[in-house]
Every structure is written in C-alpha cells, then in structure tokens.
C-alpha cells in the first residue's frame, strides 16, 4: 500500500518540478531593439509639435504620428499630456507648451526641458483640442511604443491592449513584432490579436484558418468574438468552424477548471494533513485522544503572530524563525500536558478525552485574556502572495502551492523520523507493546513525553501554515479539531500513509462537492459520509493488522 501511495506522490511531484524548471528558462531575452527607429534625422521636437497649434485635425494627426516616431524619452510624457489636455497652445508666442493650472492662471513649462517659462492668464493659453479619432491614434501610438519596449511586462500589456484592434498600422506593427519577440506569453497575446483581426479579413480561407487557430486560445475575448462570428456570419462553413472552435475552447476551460478544483482540493487536503498529522501520532501511535490538539495549532499560529510583532521589519523571513519557534512552543506545552494530565490517565481513553478537553478550554481562554478575543492578522510575505498564471483561465496561487509542499515536507520528515531514527524505533516499540519495550530497557515514560511533544510540535507548525491562510483567533483550533479526527479515523488509526490519503481524498472530495452543494452542505455531506463509512469499516481505510490492533 505504502509503495503505491509513494509512487502516486512522485507522479504528482514530478510534473511540478519539471514545470517549475521550464518557467525559469526563458530569462535571456534582452536582445530586443526598437523596430521603428526609421527616421534617420530626428527633427527638433518643438518643430514637430508646432502643427498642433492649427485647427485642422488632419495636421494634428500627422504631427502626432511624427512625434511618436521620434526616439526620445519625452515622447510618451508628451503624448500622455496631450491626452490629459495638459498640452497648451500659448497664444502670445504661438507655440506649444506644457501647462499646469495654478490659482486660475497657467504656469507654463517648456515641453522638452520642462523648464518653467512663464505665468500667464487663463485666457492667454488654450488646451490643444483633440477628438475621439485622435485619441485612438494616440492610444495606438502609445501601445506601439510599449510594444517595442525593452520591458517584457510592458510589451505584454501593450499586446493585450491591442487585442480586438483593427487598425492596419497596428496589425503591421504586431506582425513585425511577432518576428522578433522571444517571450512566449507576449507572443501568445500577439498571435491572439492577429488572429482576431484576421476574422475580419475578406478572404474566407484566412478567416477559417484564424477560427481554427483561435480554437486553442483561452483568452477571454476569443470566445466572445467567436460567438459574434457565429451570429453574424453568412457562410455555413464558417459557422461550423466557429462552433467547433468554441466547443474546443469550452472543453479546455472545463478541463482546466477540473484541474483548478483538484488544486484547491490538494491545498485543502494539505491543510487537513498538517492539522491531522500531529494527531495521527498522539492518537494513532500512542492511543491518546488529545482534544487540545486544535489549541496547540492555535498556539503555533499565535507564535507566528508574536514573532512578526517582535521583528516588525522583517516580514519576509520571520516565517523561517516562526516555524521552529512554533514547534518549540507547542511542543513544550504538549510535554507539560503529558506530564501533568495525561500521564495519570493512560489506558483510560475516555477520561483522557475529557481532561484534554478541559485543557483546551483553559488554553483558549488564556489566549483570549492575553491577546484579546479579536482576530489577529499575520502579514503574508511578498514571496507568498501572487499567483503563477499558467494560462488565462488557470493559475496557481503561491501560498497554496507552498502549503502543499510544506505539508508534504513535514509528512516526509516525520516519516523519516519514525522509520529511521532511534527515537522513532522506541516510539514504535512502546506503541506496539509497552511492557516488552520496558523490559528491553526503553524508558517508556520519557518516550511518551517526547512522542507527545513531537505530535504537539507538529501541530504548532501546522499553526504557522494556517496563519497564512486564515485569521488568527482563539477559535482557530476548534474549527479544525473535528476535521482532524475525521481524517485520522478515516485513514486508519496508527497509519501515517492512511492519514495522507484520507487528508487529500477528503480535501478533493470537499472541493468537488462545493460547487454542486455549497460550502456548508459539502462539509455536511463529507461528515455524514465519514460517519457511515466508519460504521462499515470501523478501523478506517487502512486498518492496522496484527496484535496491536486487537487492543
């Protein structure tokens, strides 16, 4: 069983690693040059701006186009100023200047050097009038400039903006850019833009080719445009092609949505795994029902909060400190609980349950008194926010990705600890047969305390992870305790692989039910399922075999 799950885990891990490596690859794309430095003798910007003083929109347009062709850092600010009506016609000198309103007067600046020129009355200067057509031209020219920018983000934005644009100049520029572009995501946008433009071509074959190409494009406008084609086209062939492409897009979106649900399920599952894995040790290995487990998770979350408060300037790496700190805090509290309460109750599981529940009430109330009953917010470091955008309909948020990895790491570390170390050997010996273990010289009391401390410490680590996902409050633990018990019992007590399977299984099941039934009902359905399942198989998915199981 263990091997099969191991293989499954690897099958899940490998694509991740590969795709991560692939995402890092195309970084060497700095060989981009401006494609439109055609004009050999750059003219004085002032001269170029001069026609803007005239009334004719045609002359203004010519001036704008000429301005846009200049290779000067002033071009973009000037075009923007023109859009914002900050470019003025100074009537006295009959020239174009930049202006700003100060107390009803105009403060004028030189358009090239931005030196203050003069201060004139309200009527002595007039904003250059532009119409919608000119606005489009300016926008296009701005987009064109950023399309050839050295910054790939800017190019991406520009290409994205040009989708649906039918201006022949723009399309020519896009085609030109396509030849030299190296970044795949910019290239994708350019292709989308060109294909959508091709839908308006007069040639049916071109249109059909474009429709076919768009069938593998997930950009949100593509589907709308294809639907438009479906409505407006006269040609049956074209309609059929559009329908086929739309179907292809929808099928792909559905597949990606399934992948998205699985991803969310995995992330919920890893939260469950983190919360339950400590319990799997204390409950599964030691047979101790620890109702205070949720509160140990809560203590871990509060430790994260305290560490952040103590190191206010270093949110980026305070998590690295919070993880061992939470392990120590929760682990110590766990050892105290074991020494002062549970020690007296071994062999009486129901009493242990009650006593640890009392401990959980005390811990909760202590936190309420110390930190106030209000929720505390833990700042998420920058490297954990954001998402990995794989395509327009599918993205993986970093915090969830990290939590999945974190949960698996903790799981593997724990497994190694139990299987490969001396402490692990002793823990397993004591859990299988206490008396024999003692007869062989194992100090079972010490092992008990350490095992309980280990399980509690892992609860603390789970708290660090949960603090990144939810608010940190006194009730944080309570909401996870029942789920954690369900996971451990469902997977089979005393079986860590069972816990892993149960956590991911329940997480994914929950997320698949959610869109159908709503979040609360999904949870109820899962609970009822587990209740019924336990009644069919009281020992869980993977029951322990052998003598230990009979006790």
């Amino acid at each position, binding site marked *: 069983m263990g091997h099969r799950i191991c293989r499954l885990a690897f099958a899940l891990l490998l694509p991740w690693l590969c795709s991560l490596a692939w995402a890092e690859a195309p970084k060497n794309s700095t060989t981009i040059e401006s494609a439109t430095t055609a004009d050999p003798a750059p003219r004085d910007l002032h001269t170029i701006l001069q026609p803007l003083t005239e009334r004719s929109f045609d002359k203004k347009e010519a001036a704008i186009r000429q301005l846009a062709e200049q290779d000067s850092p002033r071009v973009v600010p000037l075009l923007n100023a023109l859009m914002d009506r900050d470019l003025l016609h100074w009537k006295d000198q009959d020239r174009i200047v930049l202006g700003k309103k100060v107390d009803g007067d105009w403060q004028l600046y030189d358009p090239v050097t931005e030196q203050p020129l003069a201060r004139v009355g309200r009527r002595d200067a007039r904003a250059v009038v532009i119409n919608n057509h000119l606005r489009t031209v300016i926008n296009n020219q701005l987009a064109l400039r950023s399309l050839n920018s050295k910054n790939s983000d800017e190019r991406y934005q520009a290409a994205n903006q040009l989708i649906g644009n039918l201006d022949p100049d723009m399309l020519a520029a896009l085609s030109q850019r396509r030849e030299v572009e190296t970044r795949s995501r910019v290239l994708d946008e350019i292709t989308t833009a060109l294909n959508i433009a091709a839908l308006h071509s007069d040639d049916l074959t071109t249109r059909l080719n474009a429709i076919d190409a768009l069938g593998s494009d997930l950009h949100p406008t593509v589907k709308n445009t294809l639907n438009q084609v479906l409505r407006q086209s006269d040609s049956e062939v074209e309609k059929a092609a559009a329908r086929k492409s739309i179907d292809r897009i929808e099928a792909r979106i559905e597949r990606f949505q399934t992948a998205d649900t699985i991803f969310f399920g995995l992330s919920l599952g890893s939260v469950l795994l983190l919360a339950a894995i400590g319990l799997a040790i204390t409950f599964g290995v030691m047979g101790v029902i620890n109702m205070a487990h949720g509160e140990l998770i809560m203590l871990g979350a509060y430790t994260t909060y305290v560490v952040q408060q103590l190191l206010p300037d270093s949110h980026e790496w305070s998590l690295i400190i919070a993880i061992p700190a939470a392990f120590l805090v929760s682990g110590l509290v766990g050892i105290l609980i074991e020494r002062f309460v549970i020690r007296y109750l071994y062999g009486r599981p129901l009493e242990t349950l009650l*006593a640890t529940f009392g401990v959980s009430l005390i811990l909760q*109330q202590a936190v*309420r008194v110390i930190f106030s009953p209000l929720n505390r917010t833990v700042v998420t470091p920058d490297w954990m926010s954001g998402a990995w955008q794989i395509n327009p309909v599918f993205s993986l948020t970093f915090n969830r990705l990290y939590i999945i990895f974190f949960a698996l790491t903790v799981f593997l570390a724990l497994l190694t600890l139990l299987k490969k170390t001396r402490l692990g050997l002793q823990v397993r010996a004591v859990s299988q047969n206490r008396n024999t273990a003692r007869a062989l010289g194992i100090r079972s009391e010490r092992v008990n305390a350490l095992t309980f401390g280990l399980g509690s410490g892992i609860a603390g680590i789970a708290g660090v992870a949960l603090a990144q996902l939810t608010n940190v409050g006194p009730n944080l633990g309570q909401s996870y305790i029942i789920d954690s018990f*369900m996971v451990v019992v469902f997977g089979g007590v005393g079986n860590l692989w069972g816990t892993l399977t149960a956590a991911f299984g329940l997480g994914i099941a929950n997320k698949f039910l959610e869109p159908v039934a709503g979040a609360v*009902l999904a949870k109820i359905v899962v*609970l009822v399922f587990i*209740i019924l399942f336990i009644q069919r198989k*009281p020992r869980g998915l993977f029951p322990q075999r052998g003598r230990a199981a009979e006790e």
Partner: protein
Amino acid sequence: MRHSTFKTALTDRTARHFIGVLFAATLLAVLCNQLFPADSALHVSSYTITLMGKYLCYALLALALDLVWGYCGILSLGHGAFFALGGYAMGMYLMRQIGDRGVYGNPTLPDFMVFLNWKELPWYWHGVDHFWFAALLILLVPGLLAFVFGWLAFRSRVTGVYLSIITQALTYALMLAFFRNELGFGGNNGLTDFKDLLGFSLQADSTRVGLLIASAVALAVAFVLCRWITGSKLGRVVLAVRDAESRARFVGYRTEHYKLWVFTVSAILAGIAGALYVPQVGIINPGEFSPLNSIELVVWVAVGGRATLYGAVIGAIVVNYGKTVFTGLMPEAWLFALGGLFVLVTVFMPQGLTGVVQQNWPKLKARLSRNTDQETSNDCA
C-alpha cells in the same frame, strides 16, 4: 439478587429520598414565589423560578447521559443533538402558536419565512400546530435518530473513542445543517419570539411556575424510569456490556440490542429535556448543537459521579449554578474554572462528588457518632 420491578423502583429508598428532596425544593420555591410579596425577604423571583426550571431540564439531560455513559459505557459526545432536536420540535409548535402576532403579521408563515420570501409552509411544518403532534415529534425525532444511528454504529461494533468521535461529528454536522436558512428552521437565529404554550402566556408568572413543576415531574418520572431500567434484568446485562462487552457477547447476549435500546431511551429523555427547556428560555438556535455543549454536559455527569443517577442530577445543578455565579461575577474566569474542573475531576475524582462522599461516608459517620458519644459522656460527667 432480586430484580426490581417498576413498583419497587418507585418505593426504593434512593428514589424516595430523591423525589422527596426534588419536590420539597420545587414546592418551597413555588410557594415563596406565590405567597410572599415581591419586596419580602422570602420572595423567590420569577427569574429564579425560570432558572430552577432550566437547571431541572439540564438535570434531566444529564440523567439521560448517565444512563448511557454510566451504565452502558457509551460516551456520547452528541447528546446535545437529541436535546436540541426535542427543543426544535417544541419550538416549531410554539412558533405556530404565534399565529398572526409576528412582526410581519402573516397568519400562515412564521416571521423568518416571510423574511426569506417563502411563499408557503414547508411540508415538515404541517401538523405542528397541534400539541399532540408536536409532543409526538419530541419523542420520535430524537428517538428515531438515535435508533438509526445506534443501529448502524452498534451493529458494526463501533465502540469507545470512535463512537465518541462520530457522535461528536453527528452533532457538528447537525449544527452546520441547522445554520442554513434553506433548512427552514430559522437558520442562524433559530426559533424565538414565542408567545404562548397551550393557551398560557409564556410571560406570565403562573406559566413559569407551571413549567417548573412540569420539569420537576418529568425529572422525577425519568429518575424512577432509569432506576427501574438499571435495576431490572436488562439493566444487569447492560452493566455487563459496560464492564466486559466481549464476555457478555460470548455468554450469548446480543449486546448491540441492549445498547441500542438504552441509547434510544436516553435520546428520548434528552429530547423531552430539550422540549421543556425551550419555553423556559424562550429561544432555540443551532448553537445548542455545538459540540461544546454536548461535552460540557459530560462534565456535569463526571462532576456529580457516574452510574448513580442522582449524581448526574447533582452534578448538573452544581456546575450550572457555578456557571451562573461565575459568569455574573467574573465572566473571564468561567472557562478557566470549567476547564480546570474537567482536568481535576478526571484526574483526582474519577467517581465524582458522590463518589468522594460515599468513600468518606463510613469515616464521617464514625466521627459524628464519636462526637455525639463524647458529648453525651461529657454531659453525664
């Protein structure tokens, strides 16, 4: 050992003492409430009357739990669910009694349904206008749930902590379900704003007194019933199941049938407790299903002492009185006290208060009699 019949259960010494003390206290409170004017030092306020009624409902609930936990060894962490279901059944009846006196004045729909824009009454609300039908629901719904749940659980031999955890999951799932508006039980706010019960206004002092007396009678009857069950032949088998289930099974008893029977009776008693509780506090909401309530109930029984029946009653009253006092004086400290109680009782007093008294009773008695002996001898000298 002779097995007790219902008659002997009624006349045995413990039952007589218990019923005597219960009725004496109730009667005293009622008389002090009715006879003395409000400014008299001996007057018992209506608030206290309702509080006492509430405690008696809790005591009945604790009694129900003691029957399954103390005698049958089933630690149910979901008895609050049966209590709340009984309460909801009563709440539905009380809701229908409001009629058109609600905020929206709708004669056919309760306020919350008008608020949710529902057009007609859901099917499961039909019939609860009649008290007899509501009373039937109070008995049947918790009983049926316990029967089905117990049948599934005991048949597949789910025992010990596993059973405790799935009963907890049961009440948790019910809580989540009842929080939903779509279920038609008022969602988050539950059922409230009740006006009258069987034609008596719930605000009137006489109704409160009546409810207190009804609670006391219910508790007394339930106590005698439990005495009878635990003293009967069936009770002996149930004890055997608690102490050595496998052995009882090998001897030839169908242990799951005995457990199921006791579990169902206990759930019905819990449902009755809930039904009496709701008109006295005037509200029932999904919070009653919360796992915390059920587990708190377990500590009442643990404090009082398991497997004594009267211990559960004493525990429920003592802990709840403590809760009332504590939450009034220093609200922050109550959860510390409750948590400490859980730990102390389980670690140091596994038999509860009654156990401590019972253990020390011979010593105490000896000392008392020695003191009186000395006094008499002193007098003689």
